């Protein structure tokens, strides 16, 4: 019997992409429901996420789960087959959670700053801050991967999915603000990791590339994309 799994999201929302990748990793079939998030938000979104009115929302057996990283933990809890999304040891789980919070609270706003910068100065500032954060994440990669291919070790996990979903916006930000910060010289380990991540079956179909984000930004009218 097929379980009913729906993902309310949008291809160009990296938060939504996180969930899509996690479902793919677990080989869970789901229905992707594209919802309106600009202007008049979709009714189903307002019903399922009345608190934040944001995507992604996972609907399982008719019940909604909100917030991308909480959804990832839910997916790991429900579909217990391998591979695991979170590490099995409590200490490594804590480390993975720590770095995801760090990314969500620090990196994302700098990427957004690079993509939407109104001036050269603003772009440079955002890029500078992003570069610092990427340096910290390069060290985190060393700590977490222990010489293996991914933050999660041999297979992608919680932290890989959280960061990897932002590769498109990051590279778009570089092009739009005309700076290079995600390069082999400064963050060689992350660059290698990004290449491996992007090629994975669970990832490649759902990971929007830089060009798609550039098109979105360039189409914006008053902060709202028209594509």
């Amino acid at each position: 019997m097929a379980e009913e799994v729906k993902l309310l999201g949008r291809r160009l929302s990296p938060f939504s992409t996180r969930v899509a990748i996690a479902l793919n990793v677990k080989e869970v079939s789901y229905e992707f429901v594209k919802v309106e998030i600009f202007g008049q938000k979709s009714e189903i979104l307002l019903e399922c996420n009345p608190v934040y009115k944001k995507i992604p929302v996972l609907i399982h057996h008719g019940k909604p789960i909100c917030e991308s990283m909480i959804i990832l933990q839910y997916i790991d809890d429900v579909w217990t087959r391998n591979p695991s999304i979170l590490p099995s040891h409590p200490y490594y789980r804590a480390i993975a959670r720590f770095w995801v919070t760090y990314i969500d609270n620090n990196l994302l706003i700098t990427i957004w700053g690079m993509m939407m910068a109104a001036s050269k100065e603003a772009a440079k500032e955002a890029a500078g801050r992003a570069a610092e954060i990427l340096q910290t994440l390069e060290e985190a990669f060393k700590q977490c991967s222990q010489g293996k291919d991914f933050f999660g070790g041999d297979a992608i996990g919680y932290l890989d999915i959280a960061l990897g979903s932002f590769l498109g916006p990051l590279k778009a930000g570089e092009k739009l603000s005309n700076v290079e910060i995600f390069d082999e010289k400064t963050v060689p380990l992350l660059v290698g990791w990004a290449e491996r991540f992007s090629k994975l079956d669970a990832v490649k179909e759902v990971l929007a590339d830089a060009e798609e984000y550039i098109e979105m930004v360039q189409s914006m009218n008053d902060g709202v994309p028209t594509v």
Partner: protein
Amino acid sequence: MAEGENKGLVLLDFWVSPFGQRCRIALAEKGVEYEYREENLRDKSPLLLKSNPVHKKIPVLIDHGRPVCESLNIVQYIDEKWPDRAPLLPADSYARAQARFWADLVDKKMYESGTKLWKLKGEAQEEAKKEFIEILKLLEGELGDKKYFGGDTFGLVDIALVPFTAWFYSYEACANLSAEKEAPKLVPWVKRCRERESVSKSLPDPLKVYEFVCFLKKVYGIE
């Protein structure tokens, strides 16, 4: 052996921090022994700086030399490390997701909104009050008639929120906002939580919190 390493459990904390109190409550619920270390936040210890180099903040739980940072991370770590007693998260996956959602909401909203109540004045403070009341009402709605946020069992969401109740007196004194009046359904919940030894031993006297807030206001030059 450097100071603090391999010394069982050490909690680097600051007495008034609601984030630190979350960890103390969780450790007490599990009946786990640990060493409490008070940090001077204006002169942070080398151990703190080494254990949380990214943020340099408390609380940090150091477990046999290995640091865990961020209060809700620490609470979940404690729960996962001692799964055999006093579970802080429900067994059901959906209920767990809900618990994480509401604990995360408390994290996102309470501290920032509460801080505005004593830091701001005039119209900005009035705005902050409206925002804070909204959050309280949201939480009150989620609690409903349940004993605790998770139902019958004291857990993650209760632990995330209850330390902020020690600041209610300060919010009333500074902003003329009575949390008890705005969200009356929370009152019996607060009483119930405070009856637990883990909570009563971990939360500070609201008057001492108010003294601390007054001290901070002086430091920040707020009237």
